[in-house]
Every structure is written in structure tokens, then in C-alpha cells.
């Protein structure tokens, strides 16, 4: 019979998690669909469930000295409502476009990165933010870079005895962020291509810090390091024009029902250009 655990403390949660194979249930927006997929084809086995909802400490967005802490139960809606600086605008844009309001109200950022779908909208933004992921186990806590957290197709470095407790986003006053996603309908889009970026400019409008990420075009989000290097120190105005196919050469998009590989590559270039234009201060915006 199905085991369902609802620990009241982190210690209890970690003990349970270490005691056997069980899936962590936060918002439920991935756990239940996975169950529907399995049972529709006659696999009625349900792994034990570790529902962490009672760990209410995980439900907060907290400002610390040099970073923001997003607990494992923070939902997309929590983020949208939070009073956080423009650094989070990209993540908020992703939040507003993840499923309908029902999903935004329940789905968590941490759950999104733990599911580690190539089309997950959280990861590119969080990597662009230089975020880190905090994991806990009975052995203690550890923190890994978001860029290293997802280490393969639908796979993360989170061990079966660990629980992701928070995402830590370093402060970067003055930085701007944006996110664009592409799909074949207006709402409830599973991204065909998505791009996330964080940029900081100096008084002269020159790029002093930049992160550009592409999602849905590889098993894990890809950082466009060569392009970042090319744009560092350059004026942000006109940066879009410097983006070329060569900058997305490392992407490994697939041909599938949502889009061809060559299209994804081309769309990634176009969206990065759009993103860079959007990142210019005070420019009228147009939705892609």
C-alpha cells in the first residue's frame, strides 16, 4: 500500500528520505502528472511520497546580507508577488508564463529544477542569476552551483538521501534580467526555445556583467559563454546585432514535434537578440 509521509520537521524529513526510495512532493504539479502518465499505461506502482508541505520554514523568500533565499516551498505566485529587485524580472516573467494560475499557485521553483525537464523554465533563469542550490541530508548541508545542479537529461546531483531546501540568489544591485519563451500557443506553453539573461551596465552603457542562457535546446540549459565574452565591455546598445549563429554552436537541440533542430538554433539566436534589446533600459517592449 502506498506510503505517504508528511514530516513535521526537517530532521524527520531527512530521516524518512534516507530510509528508502521516496519522491519529494512539494507543489504536486509534476508528481501527479507523472502518476497519470504511468497509470494510463498500466503501471500502477507509486513510489513512496514524502510530502514536505508541513515544513513551513521552506515557504519564504528571505533577504540575507548578500543573497536572497528562496525556500523549497516558494511557488511561482509567491515569487510574482514578492517585493524583489529587477534582478528577478526574468524569473518573474517565467513565473507568469508557467501553466495557468493554478499551476503558478502550487508549482515551486525548487520542484521545477528538481524535475530538471529540458523545457523547465526555472533553470536558465537561475543559472543566469548565478544561483546556488542548497541541499540537506542527515550528513549535513551542501551548496552547489545551479549551473552544476542539473547534470543530465532530467537528472540532478541531488542524492536520494537529500532534500533541496532552498535556492540562493546572490544580490547584484543594478542588474536587470529578462526571459523570453517561444511556443505554438499563447498560454500553457511548453517552451520550444527559451532564453534568459542578466546584465549589468556601467554609466556609459557598457556591459560589466552578463549571463545569457538558452533552454529547451539541449538536455540541460546552455550558457552562451562565447557571446558573453564578446559582449563584455561592449555597449549594450547594438549588442543584439553582434549575435550570430556561431554563438549557439554548442546547443544540441533535437528534432521533435514542437520544432526542428535547425529551427530551434535559429530561434535561439533571434530570441537572444530580442532579449538583449529588452534588456536595454526603458525601451518600449514588444512580446515575442
Amino acid at each position, binding site marked *: *500500500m*502506498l506510503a*505517504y509521509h*508528511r514530516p513535521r520537521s526537517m530532521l524527520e524529513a531527512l530521516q524518512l528520505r534516507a530510509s528508502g526510495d521516496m519522491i519529494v*512532493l512539494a*507543489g*504536486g*504539479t509534476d*508528481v*501527479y*502528472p507523472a*502518476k*497519470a*502518465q504511468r*497509470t*494510463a*499505461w*498500466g*503501471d*500502477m*506502482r*507509486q513510489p513512496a*511520497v514524502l*510530502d514536505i*508541505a508541513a515544513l513551513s520554514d521552506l515557504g519564504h523568500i528571505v533577504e540575507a546580507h548578500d543573497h536572497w533565499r528562496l525556500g523549497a516551498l516558494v511557488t511561482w*505566485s509567491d515569487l510574482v508577488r514578492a517585493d524583489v529587485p529587477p534582478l528577478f524580472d526574468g524569473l518573474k516573467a517565467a513565473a*507568469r508564463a508557467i*501553466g*495557468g*494560475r*493554478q*499551476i503558478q*499557485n*502550487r508549482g515551486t521553483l525548487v520542484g521545477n529544477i528538481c524535475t530538471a525537464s529540458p523545457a523547465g523554465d526555472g533553470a536558465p533563469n537561475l543559472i543566469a542569476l548565478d544561483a546556488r542550490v542548497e541541499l540537506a541530508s542527515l550528513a549535513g548541508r551542501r551548496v552547489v552551483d545551479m549551473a552544476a545542479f542539473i547534470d543530465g537529461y532530467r537528472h540532478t546531483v541531488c542524492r536520494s538521501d537529500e532534500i533541496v531546501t532552498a535556492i540562493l540568489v546572490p544580490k547584484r544591485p543594478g542588474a536587470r534580467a529578462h526571459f523570453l519563451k*517561444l511556443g*505554438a*500557443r*499563447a*498560454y*500553457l506553453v*511548453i517552451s*520550444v526555445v527559451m532564453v534568459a539573461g542578466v546584465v549589468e551596465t556601467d554609466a556609459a552603457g557598457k556591459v560589466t556583467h552578463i549571463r545569457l542562457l538558452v533552454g529547451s535546446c539541449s538536455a540541460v540549459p546552455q550558457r552562451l559563454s562565447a557571446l558573453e565574452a564578446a559582449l563584455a565591455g561592449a555597449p549594450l546598445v547594438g549588442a543584439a546585432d553582434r549575435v550570430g549563429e556561431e554563438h549557439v554552436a554548442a546547443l544540441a537541440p533535437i*528534432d*521533435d*514535434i*514542437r*520544432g*526542428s*533542430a*535547425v*529551427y*530551434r538554433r*535559429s*530561434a535561439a539566436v*533571434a*530570441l537572444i537578440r530580442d532579449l538583449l534589446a529588452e534588456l536595454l533600459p526603458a525601451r518600449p517592449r*514588444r512580446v*515575442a
Partner: protein
Amino acid sequence: MPDQAASDLVTLSFTLNGRPTTARAAPFASLADTLRERLGCTGTKIGCEAGDCGACTVLIDGEQVCACLVPSQRAAERVIWTVEGDGPAGLTLRLRHAFLAHGAAQCGICTPGMLMAATDLLAREAAPSPAAVADAIAGVLCRCTGYIKIVEAILDAAGGTSLLPTPVAATAAVGARLARVDGWSKVAGREVFGADWAPADALWLRVVRSPHRAARFTIGNLDRLIAATPGLAAILTHRDVPGENSFGVFPTMKDQPVLAPGLVRFRGEAVLALVGSRAAVEALSDHELPIVWQPLPAITAIEAALAPGAPLLHATAADNVLARGQLATGDPAAARAVAAAEVEGEFETAFVEHAYLEPEAGFAVPVGPGPDRIEVSATTQAPYLDLEETARVLGIETTRVRIRPTACGGGFGGKLDVSVQPLLAVAAWVTKRPVRIIYSRIESMASTTKRHPAHIRARAAADADGRLTAFEMRADFNTGAYASWGPTVASRVPVHGMGPYRVANVSIKTRAIFTHNAPAGAFRGFGVPQAAIAHETLMDDLAERLGIDRWAIRYRNALGPGDRTPSGQRLTASAGLPQCLEALRPDWAAALARVAAHNVDAPRYRRGVGIAAMWYGCGNTSLSNPSTMRITLARDGALRFFNGAVDIGQGSSTVLLQIAADTLGLPVDAFQMQVGDTDLTADAGKTSASRQTFVSGNAVRLAAAALRAKILALANAGPEARLSLSGAHLHVADGEASRTLELATLPPTGVGEADAVAPQATIVLEGIGSWDPPTTALDENGQGTPYASYGFGAQMAEVEVDTVLGTSKVVAMVAAHDVGRAINPTLVEGQIHGGIAQGVGLALMEEFVPGRTENLHDYLVPTVGDMPAVKIYLIEAGEPEGPFGAKGVGEPALIATAPAILGAIRHATGVRATRVPVLPHRLWAALKGEAPHGR
């Protein structure tokens, strides 16, 4: 799980709809499941169990959530609102009224989710913008309404005004915007759909389905497994089917097994039926069953099925061709030889899923110890077909079967075939227990019918003035693994394939071809929407070639009264395409100018406008498809309308009642209605082919007229007499001849004896009406009168294309439809909105791929944000054969949409798209002048 061991259950307390509530539930069971199965709150619908459709939306602590994604445990101590409640501050109640007044509920299955999402919005924002409304309800899919009336209703509710339609007097119902008669139960969450009720002691049925597209299989010893599995009553195989193990809509083509006998022909085909307690059938995995699979090579595409030496799916279909159709008139080759312009094209469409938000569900009850009879309640579009199929698979007379349809949460053709009915009937018959089933979304998508993918080659020629002189088409339809409605597509397309135009020389040949896919069956238009993409693209080609405006070339060729169709039928009246096009003309001119102005400085976001015309024969093609209706008056004054036409959301119950009321001369609220119970209602035919308003409308008109004639004769009154009914007193006002008929004193009707149990219910007057549209058989060249009437229409689309990313957004549509007479304009508009929504999906996003898009996140249907603004012109070119001049609109609404959108994309970009859906990557490839990459 109701029969789960009590030790696994927890007691949860929460506030439900303002009342403290306690439930015993499994903590991980979804809240939706607990609400429905343990608390009886079946207003919360389950459409996908994956958060994709939003039908299960409820409010928890003031936030809209999908109840299918919430562990029941998390309901503890929360404040929950469902559709059954009036909502915080009565907001849900206010929205209900607005939804009813606006016709925002059609089938009603998404309505609870929409109401709760809207309640959430209005609780936060008293005066939301239309964009805020869209954001708030974007997580709820609707397949019927095109969202437009839903958004209007929410804005109206926010404004605090919601005008209920005023009751109309007798003889004024036709043409009135009457609220749908089944509307209140839908907006109150009280409508009973297939999954919403079953006898408490019903066993559950779970179907084991083939994971392979083609395979042989053997089944080992099941008895041991049954004995070892507590709660499992039976595992049924094909050997357990008491009658014929086959079904299909045509008497000569019953080729689909209830349970496959060792060979499967598509992924999702039923192999075994597990019957038992819910816990038992949900605990037993397929891998625990003794099935040994031997996969076979699968034929998935038309070309492979037609290739020489291709394996045959059915021994009865040489070269895998299920059915052929054709139309031939004149001499197309000779006409082409002298034509001023000749154009041709090749077109391809995809499998399209109906995506009704209600997966198939129902229950069957054996009656008597034999059992003597069987009763099947399920969601359906065709009760009498269900009756015949059920009797056949049980090997019993049809008199021993009763079909009691539940409300139907969307059909669009997909619920014309049986699905759960034979399985339920066999399981209930064999186990002698009531049995219920609820398909999962994935199961529904994998196993039930689809729109036929088409591969069409077509050629058209015209004279220098743009008058069509020749049209040729060769259309192959991928009909999947079983016959279903493949023959109908093959026979309907030849009649319509050239479009609604005068053309003397035509050759059309169609084939429906078997492949290892889910059966392609009936879907809103039976192949005509696919054909329309071909003929309308060719019309644009001719216009371009000849330098003629696209509107003008259609107007020049439009069929009108007096014209002869290519099948040789003279249209004597109600051929309103010229009026439809005339109505569009100012919009066309304005849109062309607007688009041109926009494009002056919009190199990336190009706009274009397209136009398409359509026609569609109402009723079955050259086949008898009668409807019979009955209206009775009883001694106690009960006026009953026995209506066998199931309402699948389009509103037939309301429309037919309006016709009945005005014909009889009593107001609509004087009637009680019994819809679609085969023991009580006569065969009204299927709810398909846009026939219920036209065909059943005539039957009910005749029934009401017959009853009225009897009343007038009894009262010795003239034809203009006015009737009123007060209790058992039927007053007939006719000047000096006025009198009151005391119904209680009248003798029983000839057909019915006095009711011994309830004497007051004895029927004393009745009217029965039957009507079958006058058609003739088509000869070998497709010549004849295939339909008694045709719906006509024309639509224009304005589309914006992002030429860098290849995305298309339909900005606006204008639709003009000749409906003969709009019996209920609100319902007609609802059909047009919904047809346009499905046309947008067909054109831009919908593509069913077995094994890949079997759910509602990978299979894309339009959301509220994908709907254009829609302007409608209702053209009423009265149909002399139709009731009050009316004809059908259900399918016509969809047909012109996709070709109009393709025309607009072409106008915007120059890309002549010939494959739908025009997914961004395909349009992008075409914009680059390349053949599309990938799939």
C-alpha cells in the same frame, strides 16, 4: 479509493463551501478524487489529472488550484470553495447568472473550472480588464465556446449587471436568445456527466491496452491471478464477449473488437478488462499480467499502406483501402485545355484529437436475475447506435437494452462511436454486477477516434474572368486501424471537395486507407475541413494568377439559388453564400487597407488577411436519417417532450424546445423534457452531421403540429386559436369558440392505456412527428441529391506573423453564415465561436502523434489567448424544408476558418502553406524557402 482499507485513510476537517466538513480520505488521493468520490461534490470535474485542462479548478484559501494536483491531506484546515458553493461574497453565484445569460456554458464540463477561476479573479480584482480575465482563466481549457462568451460573462459579472433573458411568450420563442434549458444545472455544477454517478455497489473496470501499434499476443493463465488478487472479480478477454466481439458504425463494417483476439492494430487497443473493486483494479499493473507480446511491423502512413506488398490490416480490404468515393461530371481535361489559368497543389493534414474535456465514462447495470436486460449510461452522441452495438456484443435483442445517456461533456464527433459502452455491457453481463468506468485523459486520447489526416492533390482551372471551369481532386484519408466513419469521409468529400462554387467539370476521387493508428472517425466536418484547405488555396492561386481580388473570385463563383451543384442538385432556395460574401465585403476592404498600412513599417511582424468560403450538407449523405419526436399531454396537465436528440453542448434541447413551443402555441416553460432514454424516447438519430436543428427540428415541429391539431379539433377551434395551460385546464381561445379542455376527463390516447399506477399521468393527447430529409442515392458518378439542405458561410481572418520566429497570431475573424433561421442567435454564435477556435487549432497547432501527444500538454488546443476577436453576421436565407427556415451550423462554423488563416499567412508573408498545422518551425522553414526540416 472508496474501498481502500480503512487503516489507510485519514480524517480531514476543512471548510467546504462555507460549511465545516469532515472527510475520510487517502492522504495522497487527489483532492479532486476525494471531493467527487467521498463527498459527492461531482461539480469538480476531472479532465486530465495532470493540471493541463483546469476543469478541476477549486479555490483553496482563496487561490485557484487544480484539485487533481493537490493531496487530500493538504485540504486539512483549509477553506475550500467548489462550484457547488456560492463562492466568497457570493461571487460564484453572480458569475453563474452571467454565464447563463451569455451562453457561456455549452457542454458545461469546463464550466465549473471556469467559474472558479473567475471567482478567484473577481475576489482579487473587482473591475478586471479583458487581459486580466484572460490571464485568470488561461489555465482552463474549453473546447466548445471559443472562450468569447465566457470572457464577456466574467466582465459582465464584474460590472455587476447580468441580464437574464426575459421569458418569452408562446409563439415568440423562435429567434429569441433563450438561456439554454439545461443551463442552470451546468452553471450550478449539478449536471450529471458520465463520471459523475454510478450505483454505489458498482465494480470498476480498467482496460488493459496495447502499448504496441501492431502486435500479436497470447494470454496465459488468468484464473490463478484472479484467485490471488483480493477484490478482483474478473479479467475479461475476447472469449468472454457473449455475442459478437466486434463493433462499428456501419452494419457491414463492424470490424473493431471489444477486446482484441490475439492481434492488435493500434497503440491503445483494448486487450483485457480488469473488473473488481477500485482498489483492486488500480493496484494490478499490466506487467503483472500474463501477456506475451510479439510486436509486428506497423504501417503508420498512407504511402506505406498503399505500397505494393504492404501487409494488410484486414483480410477484407485488399490493398488496405477501406472505402472509396467519387464524383464525376463534365470533362475536366477538355476544360483545362482551354482554360485561362490552371493551378494545382498538394496538401497534408494531421490527426486531430477532439479533446472534449470530458473523457469517456459511464456505467452499466444488469437488470433481473438472467440478467434479463442491461442498462447502459454513458456519455454519447448516439443512443440508438449504442443500443444496437450493445445488443450485438451481448447477443441479445435490442429490446433488452436500455441506453440512458448521461450529459455529454463535448463530443464533436468523437462520441458517435461506442467506446466504454460494449466494455461496460460485457463486464456487467458477465459479472452480473453494476460496473463503471472512467477513461483517463491519456486513455481517451490514445484509444478513441481522430480526425482523418488527409493527403490531397487538387487542380483547378478558370476562364479569364476567374470563373471556375474545372476542378479535380484526389484525396487519401488515413483512416487508422478500423472502419469507424471512414466511409462517410470518403463519400462526403466528393460532394464538397470543389468548394461552394459553380463548376461544370469535376472529378474527385477519395480513398480511406487503413493504417496502424487509432481509428480516424467523425470529427466536425467529416473530411470537408481538410478538403476546404485545398480548394480555398486553389481559389487564392487562381485569384493571384488572374489578378483578381480574392473576395471577388469567390463571389463570382459562389453557388446561389437556382444554381446546380456538381452532384447535379438544383439549389432552389436557402443558398445564402452570395449574401454571406456581401456581408463581408466592407470588412474585407477595410482589412486589406488596415493590413497594408500596418505593413508599411513592420518588416518583422507582418499582417495579412485571408478569406474562405464553405458549404456543408446537413444530414447524412444520401442515407435515410430520420428523427422521431413525441409530445404528450397527461390528465394532470403535464406537457412532456420526449426528445431523443442528445444535446452535446450545442444546444439542441433548447432549440428543439423553442420549435416545439412556437408550433404548439405554449410557452417553453410549460414543457417538461425527457432527453435521450431509449425506453422513453424514439430514435432521433445521431447528434452529428449538423442535423439536429434541421432534421429533429422538423420532427418536433411535426409532433407539435400534430398535437396542436388534435387540441384544436377537440376544441372545435380554428388554426389561429391561442392555447394556455393551467394545471389540467387547457384553454383554447378562439373568439366566440373559446373553450377549456379538462384534461383530467379525457380518455387515454389510442396507443396508451390508462396508467394504473398513476392514473393522473395517463396520456390523453399526444403528437408524434417523424421526418427524414428528402435525398436520393448518388449514382456511380456521385450524381444525385445527397442532402436536403446545405449550410453556407464565409470567413475572413486577419493574422500577424512574426517572420523571424515563424509564429502566427490570429488577430481577428469575421464570420458570415447562412443558417436559414437562427432559432436561438446566442447558441448559433456559440457554435461559430467554437468552430473558429477549433479551426485555429487545426490551422496552427493541433497534431496528434500516437505515443507522443497523448495528453493535453503535448497536444496543444487553443487557449483563451489564442482566440481572435470575432465578428459575426448571421444570414437568414430561409430553408423551406427547415423548421421555421432553419438549417444546421455546427460543422459549417469550423470549415472556413483554417483556409482563411492560411490565406492570411500567405498574404502576410507570401508563404503558401500546404501542410497543417502551420507550426512555427514549419512556417519558419517556408519563410526561408526551404523544405521543412524535421517533423
